[in-house]
């Protein structure tokens, strides 16, 4: 199982702040992103940062481990 988290402007477009996606062998961040973007196109319009287990990830080819925490984030506006 992959735990997916959303925050701020993305939550608003998805309608919830978390969901779970079944884990598949050799699953990449890109695949997870594409699958979710199909269901939530408006939310993914503003997604531009990715984190796995609380770490920034730039390479979407990253393979995901089971039980990862994945976050799709809009541009930050803190500070």
């Amino acid at each position, binding site marked *: 199982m992959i735990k997916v988290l959303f*925050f*701020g*402007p993305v*939550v608003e477009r998805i309608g919830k702040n978390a969901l779970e996606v079944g884990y598949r062998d050799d699953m990449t961040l890109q695949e997870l992103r594409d699958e979710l973007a199909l269901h939530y196109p408006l939310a993914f319009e503003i997604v531009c940062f990715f984190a796995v287990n*609380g770490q920034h990830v730039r390479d979407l080819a990253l393979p995901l481990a089971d039980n990862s925490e994945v976050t799709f984030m*809009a*541009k930050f*506006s*803190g*500070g």
Partner: protein
Amino acid sequence: MKDAVRIQSDDFSQDEEILALKASSRRMGGIATFVGCARDFSEGRDVAEISFDAYGSMAVSEMKQLRSDAIAKFGLLDARIVHRICTVTAGDNIVFIAAGAEHRVAALEACRWMIDELKLRVPIWKKEVTPQGEAWVVPHP
């Protein structure tokens, strides 16, 4: 003493933070700080209040990393970063950055670098409440 990097709901005291920063070294000759605060007007609209959402655990670890990076990059003696997550109104403090170094140039450059980097790296989002409704802030490039 409070942690050098924190996310909190309460306001912070500059005097207290500077005292904690200074405690790290008697060689500190320059301390630069930045305080970001809530404005009553933004992008042509009145702003009644601002609220925040954050990926808390990641935000704290990114802020800790940012502090270490600044200390290494600018040869600082110490640095502190505090970000409030709560609802604020005009004039309220939002974020505090402090950089202490032997000489002023390192402190001033590090302070500016830290607030610029914080905005790029740290997963926190700001929502403005205006008479026309609520809107998440879209940062400019």
